[in-house]
C-alpha cells in the first residue's frame, strides 16, 4: 500500500511502487484526464501537476510521488464550476479530438502558477514537450493567454487545490 495525495484527498493505493503514476490515476483511482499517449515521456498527454510542477505521469513511478501532492485536471474544476484554464479552453473551443488537451492544460496551469503573465514565446517554449496531432495549436495558445487573463481577474481562486 502506498499513500498518494490526489486532488486534495489521501488515497491508499494497492499498486507496486514501480507502477507509473499514470496507471495509478487511471486504473486505481478511475480518473480520466491523464492519458496514455506513448509511455515514453515523448508526447505530454499524461501530464499532471506534482507539488506545483508539471510531471509526465507515464514515466513517473509511484515511489517517486509518495506523499506528494498530485493534481489532475479533475482537481481544477468541473463543467459546472470550471477553473479559469478550463473556462478558457471552452471559450476558445481549443480542442478537436481533445486527447492531448488535458496534458497541455496541466502544463499550462503549472506555467501560469509560476509565471502569471507569460509571453507567447514563453508559452510555446513551455508546451514544446507536448504533441497535438489535430493541429489545434493556435487555439491552445489563445486559450492559455485567455486563462492568464481570467486568472488575473478571477483572483487566486484558480489554484485552490494546487498548493
Amino acid at each position, binding site marked *: 500500500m502506498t499513500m498518494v495525495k490526489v486532488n486534495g484527498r489521501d488515497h491508499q493505493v494497492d499498486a507496486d511502487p514501480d507502477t507509473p503514476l499514470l496507471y495509478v490515476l487511471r486504473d486505481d483511482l478511475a480518473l480520466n484526464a491523464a492519458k496514455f499517449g506513448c509511455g*515514453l515521456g*515523448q508526447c505530454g498527454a499524461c501530464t499532471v501537476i506534482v507539488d506545483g510542477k508539471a510531471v*509526465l505521469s507515464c514515466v513517473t513511478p509511484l515511489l517517486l*510521488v509518495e506523499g506528494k501532492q498530485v493534481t489532475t485536471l479533475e482537481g481544477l474544476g468541473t463543467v459546472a464550476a470550471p477553473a479559469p484554464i478550463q473556462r478558457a479552453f471552452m471559450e476558445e473551443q481549443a480542442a478537436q479530438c481533445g486527447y492531448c488537451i488535458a496534458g497541455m492544460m496541466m502544463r499550462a496551469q503549472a506555467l501560469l502558477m509560476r509565471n502569471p503573465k507569460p509571453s507567447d514565446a514563453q508559452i510555446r517554449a513551455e508546451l514544446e514537450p507536448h504533441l497535438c496531432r489535430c493541429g489545434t495549436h493556435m487555439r491552445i495558445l489563445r486559450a492559455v493567454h485567455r486563462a492568464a487573463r481570467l486568472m488575473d481577474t478571477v483572483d487566486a481562486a484558480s489554484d485552490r487545490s494546487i498548493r
Partner: protein
Amino acid sequence: MTGRRRIITGIVAIVLVAGAAAAFAVAWRPRIAAIAPPRPDTFDPDIVKRGRDLAAIGNCNTCHTVQGGANYAGGLPVPTPFGTIFSSNITPDAETGIGGWPEEAFVRAMRSGVGRDGRHLYPTFPYDHFTNVSEADDRALYAFLMTRQPVHALPPANQLAFPLNYRPLIAGWKLLYLRAGDVPSDAAKGAEWNRGAYLVEGLAHCGACHTPRNALGAERVNAQFAGGDVDNWHAYALNDSSYAPVRWTADALYAYLRHGWHSDHGTARGPMAEVVGNLASVPDTDVRAIAVYMADISGAPAPDRKPLADAVTQSTSADAAQANAAGAAIYAATCASCHEGNRALPYGGVNLALSTAIASPDPRNMLNIVLSGIGAVAGERSPIMPGFAASIDDAQTVALANYLRARFGKRPAWSDLDKAVRDARAVQAASLVARDAPTDSRQRGKP
C-alpha cells in the same frame, strides 16, 4: 579550487603581468582601414563552400548565434571566471559586424586575436587555436562569412570589472599563451593523422572545452585533453585519463562525431550535441581525420576495457541494491525500462555500465541529464529522454546517483553529492527562469 578563489588568484596574476604587458611594445597594433563591404558575388563559390565546411568544423555558429536569434549576429553571453563576455557579430554588416573588415584584418584576428580597430580580443575567441589555421582556410572562412546575410546588431557590452576590462592586459596573456605553429606533425603517422592534428588543434579547437584551464583562463599545456568545464557541463578527458568504460577507437569516434552516438558510449548531449550537429554537414574525410588523431591521443584501446564493461553489465545488482535499496528501486522503476530495454541506441537508453558520465569523477553531467533529460530536436529524428527535475526530489536524486555510481561505475561514491545535486537543480531551475524572463536572448547550454 573554488570559483571565487580562482578569480582572486586570476586577478592578482593578471595585475602582475600587467606591468610587463604595458612595457611590451607589441601591445599596440595598428588599426586597419575599413572597406566597403565586398559584394557577395565577388567571392568564388567554391571557396565559399569550403568556408562553410570550415565554419561547421569551427563550430562558429554556436558562440556567435543566440538561440532563436539571427545567424552569426553574436550577442551570446559567455560566462567566464572573470566576468561575462558577449560574442561579436560576425555577419558582414558594416557598422556592427565585420562588413568593413578587409581580408587581412580577418586573418589577423584569427592569427593573433586583434580586431580591425587594433584592439586585443578576449581569448574567449579561441585564437590560441585559430592561430594554427592556414591562411587559405582563413580566406575561405572570410569568404563564407562575408557572403552571409548582414545583420545590424550590436552585442551587449562585456561585463568585466576593472582591471580586466583593460584590453592591453590581453597582450600580456598572449605573450604567455599564444603560440603559433604548435600543431604536432609526424609524417610517419600518415596524411589522415596530420590532417586531424591540424583540425583538432586549430579550427576545431577541441581543447577549448576538453583541456583544463589555469588561473588565467589559459589551457594547461601539460594537461592537454585532461578534461575541462563548459556551461555547467564537464567536458570529458580525451587523453589516456579518459573514464570511458570502453576505450575510444578511431571508428567509434568517427561514428560518434558523424552521427552523434555510439553504442559503446551513448549519445552526445549538452554542448557536445551542438558540435556533432555541426559536424553532420562536414565532409566525411575531415570527420575521419579528427577521429583518427583523437583516438591516437587517447591511447591504444586496452583490450581489457570492453570485457570489464561487459562484466559490469552482466553482474547482478544485488550488492549495490542491498547497500542502497532506495536508489535501486528508483533505478528499477524509472530508468531500467529504457536503459535495459531491447531498443538499440540512439533511441534506446545507453547501457549505463558504458556511461562515462557515471564513471567520471565529476557527477554534473549525469545529474544534468537526469534532471533535464534530452529534448527533441524540432522536426528531426532525434533521441528524447524525459527530464525528471519535477518529479524527483534532492534526496531521491542523491540515492539514485549513489546507486548508479556503485552499480555501474564500480567506483567510490561521489563526494559532496548533496551539494552537486543542489547546484545542478539550481542550474536547471535557472534555465526555467531564463525562459520565463522577458527577453528573447537565451543562453546556450542550458542543461
